[in-house]
Every structure is written in structure tokens, then in C-alpha cells.
């Protein structure tokens, strides 16, 4: 057991914390609204190799594992980078697994994204990077398909995500059958894990913004942070933040084991859970809750200024909600999780 980042991961974190703090941030996020894509920062990001870093070195990528990528995207979330990084990273890994990842995708000059919801009537709806990605991968029935077309028309939205519908007409079939579905679901669980990590970054900054404001803002002759009501709103958040970060890191660890062919278990009776699909779902629900709670409370601590466009917390508030529900209602995610956790108990048998 080791609950610290590896030395490599510490340097990855430092490099990307520097990158995102100089190239991205609230100012750039505002400029990138409403589309939610900062093309200048994306171009700079290509120089770091981040778009292809999650692909094996033997396939021309950077050889980073899911746990490494989680470290990168936590920093992106913390600096509210308007970049389709999670979507590009997981789709790139998926394409590489089915042998369909070309050099432009690896380099990030062609942006790729994942249709995270089942297509309806031949259209992948509200694809998270649909308004900026040229290639979108979807699971259509039991076929893994790739559509290559101009990005879709942007759907203006709560979190300023580059959402668009993408018709699948004319899509290429990359693979078919159970293996294709398995590859897609592995990618979707990676998306859950990395989106959870982005939400952890959002939670972290939301907490810091609230604490900084509470120390500076004075009312009744003293800092509002000295009022116990304010302290207690904020004091629950470090546990939520660290808990979500640990669970996300555990999901990433399980994901890397799953890719290496190791299976896990999911025994709620003993609280012993090492299965990737289970942990990925848990991480997203947990990080979504941490981020919505932290942004909610932090915004409230800002008083009226929290509601104003000018203060940064509203940027985090809206993205926290958007990333929490863009896949599905968390309650439905929980019911899906229950299906995984309780199947053997459906008829009253015990494990």
C-alpha cells in the first residue's frame, strides 16, 4: 500500500499545475464562453504531449497510465481549463486499443471525443466534446463506430461545455460484438474516472476560493471566516474533497489493473471493492457530490458577489453541475451501481 503519488506523478502534477496556471484559468474560461473551448490553450497543450500521453509508447504515445492522467486532469479542473482533455484522452486510448489511432489524433491536431450516452434514432446526443471534436466514437448497438465530420452545432448550456448532437450517418464501423462493447465500456469507465478527477480539481479550487474570501471579507467588524456558521459550512468540505480524491485514485488504480488483465471484486458486505467498473461509477457520483456541495457552499459564503458574473466561483459552480449530470442523473448511476453490486442478491441469496 502507498497513498502518496509516485515521484513521477509528483513531477507530472507540478509540470501541469504550472502549465494550466499560466495558460488557463478563470480569465481564459470566461473568454472561451459560451462554447467552452480555448483553442489557443489547446495549441499550447499540444506541445506538452498531453493529448496522446495516455497511449502506450509502442503505439507512439506517452505511455502514461490512468492514474497519471487523473493527476493531469485534476489540475485542469482546478484551473478550469476550457479544454476537451478528458474526452480526447479516453477516446485516444480507445482508438489505440482497436488499432484506429492515427498520428493527428495522437498529436491532438485532430480532436476526438466519446459519445457517452446511447445513441437515439441514429444520433449521439449531447456529446460532451461534440462541438469541437472532429471524430466521435460511439457504441451503436453492438458496433463501435467512428463518425468523422465537422464538429456539431454548439448547444448553449449551463456549464459552457462544448456540447453538440452528432448524427452517426456514414460512420465507420471499427469493431463489432462483445469485444467492441467491452472496449467501449472500458473507455466510458475511464471517462467516469477522469471526469471525477476533474471534479476533484473543481472541488479543491472552490474550497480555496471560499476559504480565501472568508478570511478577507469583513462584516460586523470581523472576518466572516471567524463566524462559526461560516466555518462549519466549509469544514465539511476537506473530508468530501479528500474522500473523493482517494476514491478516484483508487478507481484509476483499479483501471490500470483491469487493463493489465487483473480482475477485482465488489463485496459490499465486507466493504471490499477493487472492481474497476464499480469504482469508476462510485468515483463519479462521489466527486460530483463533492463538487456540487463545495461550489454551492463556497458560492454562498461569497454572499451577493458569489452570484455576480465578476467573481470566479460561479464558473466553478456551473461546471460542477454540468460535469455531474452530463452522463446521467447520479441517482440513475446509483441504480446502475446497485445492479452491479446486488445481482447475486436479487433472489435473496447471500454471498
Amino acid at each position, binding site marked *: 500500500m502507498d497513498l502518496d503519488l509516485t515521484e513521477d506523478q509528483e513531477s507530472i502534477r507540478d509540470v501541469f499545475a504550472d502549465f494550466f496556471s499560466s495558460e488557463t484559468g478563470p480569465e481564459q474560461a470566461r473568454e472561451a464562453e459560451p462554447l467552452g473551448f480555448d483553442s489557443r490553450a489547446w495549441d499550447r497543450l499540444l506541445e506538452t504531449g498531453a493529448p496522446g500521453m495516455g497511449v502506450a509508447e509502442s503505439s507512439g504515445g506517452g505511455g502514461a497510465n490512468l492514474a497519471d492522467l487523473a493527476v493531469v486532469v485534476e489540475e485542469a479542473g482546478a484551473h478550469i481549463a476550457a479544454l476537451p482533455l478528458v474526452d480526447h484522452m479516453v477516446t485516444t486510448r480507445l482508438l489505440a486499443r482497436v488499432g484506429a489511432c492515427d498520428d493527428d489524433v495522437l498529436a491532438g491536431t485532430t480532436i476526438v471525443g466519446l459519445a457517452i450516452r446511447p445513441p437515439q434514432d441514429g444520433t449521439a446526443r449531447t456529446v460532451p466534446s461534440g462541438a469541437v471534436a472532429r471524430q466521435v466514437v460511439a457504441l451503436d448497438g453492438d458496433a463501435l463506430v467512428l463518425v468523422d465530420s465537422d464538429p456539431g452545432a454548439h448547444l448553449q448550456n449551463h456549464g459552457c461545455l462544448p456540447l453538440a448532437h452528432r448524427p452517426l450517418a456514414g460512420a465507420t464501423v471499427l469493431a463489432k460484438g462483445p469485444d467492441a462493447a467491452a472496449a467501449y465500456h472500458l473507455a466510458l469507465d475511464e471517462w467516469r474516472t477522469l471526469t471525477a478527477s476533474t471534479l476533484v480539481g473543481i472541488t479543491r479550487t472552490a474550497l480555496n476560493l471560499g476559504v480565501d474570501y472568508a478570511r478577507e471579507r469583513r462584516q460586523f467588524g470581523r472576518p466572516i471566516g471567524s463566524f462559526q456558521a461560516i466555518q462549519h459550512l466549509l469544514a465539511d468540505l476537506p473530508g468530501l474533497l479528500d474522500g473523493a480524491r482517494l476514491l478516484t485514485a483508487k478507481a484509476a488504480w483499479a483501471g490500470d489493473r483491469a487493463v493489465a488483465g487483473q480482475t477485482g471484486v465488489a463485496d459490499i458486505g465486507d466493504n471490499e471493492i477493487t472492481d474497476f467498473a464499480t469504482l469508476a461509477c462510485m468515483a463519479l457520483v462521489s466527486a460530483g457530490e463533492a463538487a456540487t456541495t463545495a461550489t454551492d457552499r463556497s458560492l454562498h459564503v461569497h454572499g451577493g458577489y458569489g452570484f455576480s458574473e465578476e467573481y470566479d466561483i460561479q464558473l466553478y459552480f456551473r461546471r460542477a453541475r454540468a460535469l455531474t449530470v452530463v452522463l446521467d442523473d447520479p441517482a440513475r448511476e446509483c441504480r446502475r451501481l*446497485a445492479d452491479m453490486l446486488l445481482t447475486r442478491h436479487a433472489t*435473496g441469496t447471500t454471498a
Partner: protein
Amino acid sequence: MDFSLSPGAVDFRAAVKAFIAEHLTTEVVDQMHATGTFNDKTFNAALADAGLLAGAVPGYGDRDPIELYILFNELEKAGAPYDGLAVTMLVAGVVNAVGTDFHRNRVLQKLLTGRFNCCLGYSEPDHGSDVASITTKAVRDGDEWVITGQKMWTTMAHVSDWVILLTRTNPDVPRHKGLTMFLLPMDTPGIEVQPVPTMATERTNATFYDDVRVGDEWRLGEVDGGWAVMGVALAFERGVMGGTNPAVPLLRHVRDWAGGAASPDGGTMLQDPLLRERLARTAIANQVSQLLTLRAAWIAATGGLPGLEGSMAKLYATGRYQQAVGWFQEMAGAEGLLAFGVDDAAADGWIDYDARHAPVTTIYGGTTEINRNNVAERHLGLPRDR
């Protein structure tokens, strides 16, 4: 990060699980709830004899400190009587950290046999959260001390061999600075124990100290240095020694019940979508609670004192436990109100039990408000509220 246990820790956990399977009989569990004493001397002694207590003392010995977490986490998940053992091993850790050779020889060695118990005498009738204001006084008389006062909530006092007792030795200095800790043999003349029943199955005690005379060798730590000893004890206590995964047995009991319980809507309760969602949310909270606890254990294992991390684990875990209990009690309806031993009680009475027990988890071991104060001031650096 690596979330797998070392091979040694895996073996240790397997040994603990095997021990529990053999020794945690229905009789042991029934006995603990019938008597209200969450401590079983035979069980504790057997644990020691099986070699499983060697790593159970925080900060002591050369065993992998993760064993401490594993032991108490397994006992808690299984619903075993571990409260008395946890307090005893906590005191063993404090004795080891701040005690003299006399204490180590006379007390620590005995505690390691699993055949003796300790209790914590901090709280008083009028001083709970504000424990630094306690008034039980210890006055020096030659080589001896004379102790007079009353403690409240001295859980396990009725089965204990020693109490660590927080006393006031100097009333003329700021309240934290005039406290001294004693390690008092419970058979010292002048100590009286009276039971305090609770709304749940567990009992606790009020303890009275009437001109209790002890030699200076029973002082633990410096004169007027009691607050520092408290600090060591609290850092050991919070988070790592059980108390942060109570919803694991709850979830197991509710799951097992729901599979066989008819739903008024048809089918079984386990098919109820809202119950399924809540079981899943509880499973998530249980993982997070475990990871926050593991993190506190990891900090202890790598040489730190995880006081604040323990506070975070306790805040999170106890809040979620209470939420889950509320959900399940409502969803089990009238059968969920039925007690242990009553036919048709939902989950054999465990829902009633957990619903009775849950309120205390945000009170004892430092209330939620006190833990929030700690996190706000010491972790977030917010200005003090005074």
C-alpha cells in the same frame, strides 16, 4: 498510489477474519447487546493468545502499523464487541508514549495480554466538549495525591482495571495549563462506579472519586502537563481505532433482509428502485469512509499523528451513517421498528439497533461541532471564533 495491502498485511487480515469466524459466535454478539458492555474478556484474551494484539497498540512495537487499522476495521465490520478493546489499546499507546518504566511494566505488559481493561475519565457532568475546564481536583500530599470529584460517561469503568483520569492540579493558571493526567488503578479505595443506561443497547457509567489517595508513580506525564497527554490520546483515537465504518454491517443486514422482504408494491424490497439507489449510495459512503480511515492509518504508519485526518474521517463517516440509518428505518416501515428477538423484525432487529445507536456517533469521541472547529481552524486556517 497502490491500494493493495502488503503480503504481510493480507496474511494478517486473513488471520483476523479466521479468528472472527471462529470466535464471534451468536452468543458473544447477543451477550454484548444484552449486557450493554461492548467488551468481551474471553474474546480479547483469545485475540491476544492468537498473537493478533501485538500490532494493536498505536505507536508501539515493530509490527506494520497498518495492522492496527486492519484489526479494528475487521472487528467493526463484523459487528464484534471492540469498544472496550479499542479504549484499552489506546491507553496502552498513551502509556507507551508518555509513561514511565513503572507504567510500562505494571500496566502496558498486562494490557497486551487482552485480560485487562482501561477506561477514559475525561468528561464530567458539567464539562464535556470544554474538557479543559474540568474540576475534578488532585492535590499533592507528600508523595501522594488526593483526588476528589466526579466523572461522567466513563464507559467500561465497571469492567476496567485502570482509568486514565484528567484532573485539575492548578486552578490559578489558564484552564489548559493546570491539568494533570493519572493512571489510576480502579480498585483504589474511594472510587465508586454507577451505571448510566442509554437509549441504545450500550451502557456507560458515572464515576465518583472521594479522597482517592495514590502515589506519585501513578501520575502519567508532567504535573500540569495533562493537556499534552490528552493531545496524544486524541490523535490516536480519532479515526484509526474503529468508529468510522459502522454502516458496513448495517448495509449487509439491510441487503440481506431486503432480498427476502415483500414490498407493498409487489416483488421484494430489494427490487425497490429507491432502496437500491440508497444501498448504492451507502456502499459509496462506506468506501469513502474506509479510504479516509486508511489515509489516517497510513499517516500514522509513516510516522505522523493523524489528528485532523481522523477528524475528517469521523465527520464524514458518522454523518453518512446517520443518513443511511434514517433512510433504511423509513423504508423498512413498522417492521423496522421491531427489536432484536421479535419475530418479523426487519433485518432481525438491526435497523432498530442502528437507529438507536447512530445518534451517539456524532457526540462521543468529540462532537461534530468540535471536529468542525478543529478542521476550520487548524486545517483551513480560518480565524478563531473567540
